[in-house]
């Protein structure tokens, strides 16, 4: 328990440091948002008035304090580009990206883990080479390329979905899932291939352990050896990778959202950066950082639940 509390405090501290670094980064890079918004022809008075409005004329420490205290109250500031509260922009985008992320994740885990185990099972057979070949293809295809192929074949040729026309979940959930399946699959394929490779390697490594021989000596069948004895040991080595995959799918794929025209976090991030919309960009960066930090925290906990030896080594 003490361990978790300590981990949690570290988590809070990490998030705080990330917010500080993000803030500093956006305020030391040259360029004045007020000047940028109004253009070079604006009068000095007008620019100064906007600075006053944005609060960028105040000392950095005051600005940071204001931002953080707003943050804690759920007020993330106002987007310069959209002239809307950042919170409401995020509120619209997060569910979209999360849905895409969860769908991708389901595909990745549902295909990746069984296929990884299966490819450990077919070791030293011709099937191994076939799987390895497919795997290398999966890892090497960039996901934007897959997206273009999917749009071309399943969108433009077969008309299974209409490319570029995002359907919101609230309006038509079935249509939404039908549309989102393709971007989710585009995100999933390369990640799945990586996961298969990791699961396979971890399984093969565990299969060489003595306890596997013990299980065979007891008369445990090959399937039960893989699923009952080896899998639990192998998955410990794969959980950190799964954590990274979760973090990456939840923070939104800039490319996939762009290619399919999905109004999610990734797309919002691109437009906020290109328009120097610092309140929005800052918030998005912190959002993504929090996802990564929290997932890492959860990975630690999950590993300890699976492997009791790790709990012990921490106590000593």
């Amino acid at each position, binding site marked *: 328990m003490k361990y978790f509390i300590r981990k949690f405090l570290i988590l809070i501290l990490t998030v705080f440091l990330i917010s500080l670094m993000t803030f500093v980064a956006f305020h030391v890079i040259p360029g004045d948002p007020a000047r940028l918004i109004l253009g070079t022809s604006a009068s000095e008075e007008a620019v100064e008035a906007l600075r006053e409005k944005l609060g960028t004329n105040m000392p950095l420490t005051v600005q940071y304090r204001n931002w953080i205290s707003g943050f804690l109250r759920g007020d993330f500031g106002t987007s310069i580009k959209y002239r809307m509260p950042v919170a409401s922009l995020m509120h619209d985008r997060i569910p979209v990206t999360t849905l895409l992320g969860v769908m991708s994740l389901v595909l990745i885990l549902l295909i990746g883990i069984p296929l990884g185990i299966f490819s450990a099972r077919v070791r030293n057979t011709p099937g191994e080479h076939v799987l390895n070949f497919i795997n290398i293809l999966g890892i090497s295809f960039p996901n934007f390329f897959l997206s273009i192929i999917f749009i071309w074949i399943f969108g433009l040729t077969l008309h299974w979905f209409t490319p570029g026309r995002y359907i919101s979940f609230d309006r038509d959930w079935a249509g939404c899932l039908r549309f989102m399946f393709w971007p989710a699959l585009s995100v999933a394929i390369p990640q799945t291939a990586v996961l298969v490779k990791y699961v396979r390697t971890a399984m093969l490594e565990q299969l060489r352990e003595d*306890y596997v021989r013990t299980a*065979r*000596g*007891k*008369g445990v*069948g090959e399937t039960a050896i893989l699923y009952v004895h080896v899998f639990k040991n192998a998955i410990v080595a794969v959980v950190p990778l799964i954590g990274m995959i979760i973090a990456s799918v939840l923070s939104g794929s800039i490319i996939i959202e762009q290619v399919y025209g999905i109004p999610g976090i990734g797309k919002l991030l691109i437009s906020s950066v290109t328009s120097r919309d610092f309140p929005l960009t800052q918030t998005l960066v912190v959002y993504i950082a929090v996802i990564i930090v929290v997932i890492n925290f959860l990975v630690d906990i999950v590993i300890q639940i699976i*492997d*009791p*030896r790790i709990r012990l080594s921490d106590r000593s």
Partner: protein
Amino acid sequence: MKETLLNVKHLTLGVTERDGSVNKAVDDISFEVRKGEILGIVGESGCGKSLTVMTLMGLMKDDVFVMDGQILFGQDDLVRVTPERRRQINGNELSIIYQEPMTSLNPLIKIGRQVGEPLRLHRKDLSDAEIDRMVLELLTEVGIQNPGQIMKSYPHQLSGGMRQRVMIAMASICRPRILVADEPTTALDVTTQAHVLSLLKRVNEEFGTTILFISHDLGVINRICDRVLIMYAGKIVERGRTRDILNHPAHQYTKGLIRSIPTRDQKGKDLICIPGRVPSTMDPREPCPFAPRCGHTMEVCRQTFPECRELAKDHIVYCHMFD
């Protein structure tokens, strides 16, 4: 004479070397295991004793294969059983404990579940509660102090000696006909060794389990085995009742092994050893593989492997000195 439980006939094992060539690691050995006995197999590392019992269990590594011979056990020839039949036999009629109790248990599965697994596989009629009760009982019998708590523990929470007791419980829970013990005390400290040996002896006496005991330590063999096979470089060179072998060793290799046991009156003197080492499977071998280290080598030793000679009842040696 007691009933024969297991009969190994002309077993020859091949090893595929790294360069693809095939060499014999065990060369035409025959022996029988009699019901109720503790049979020892002794020899230095690399003489083929572990390979032999691993073949018995069907647990050979990928580079080892049976070139010839049979292992008759009940109605089955263990060399040729189907994988399904092998799964029925292993853990149920034949079971094994290993040299490394630290790594032989699955680190992420609780002890109770691991010990109960053979029952779960081979006695499908038992309920989980019955299995748990039997595991608890058996753990108590193998000398575990707080079996209820140990059942809920993971292997890393146990000492080496405890783990070997757990292994013994696991290997004997289905009351197998033969328990193979592959150097079960080698990795343990001396006091723990003694406990594990007396436990195996009790398993033999109380459960009537026949034990095939592998060791390189004649002292350990002397304490537990009824009969013993001496193996050298893939051949059986001598076999007989343990006290006959220890009191009247016939083969020069056996004599060398006995001389190498350190005794009190040798205190301060150099330790005695057999000069040379066991040839690897890659090395060329003399017809009598011990010839290069023997000291009594004759011309004939480099021409043929000696015939079997029965020196006394149940005491057999393969050596040209008795021709």
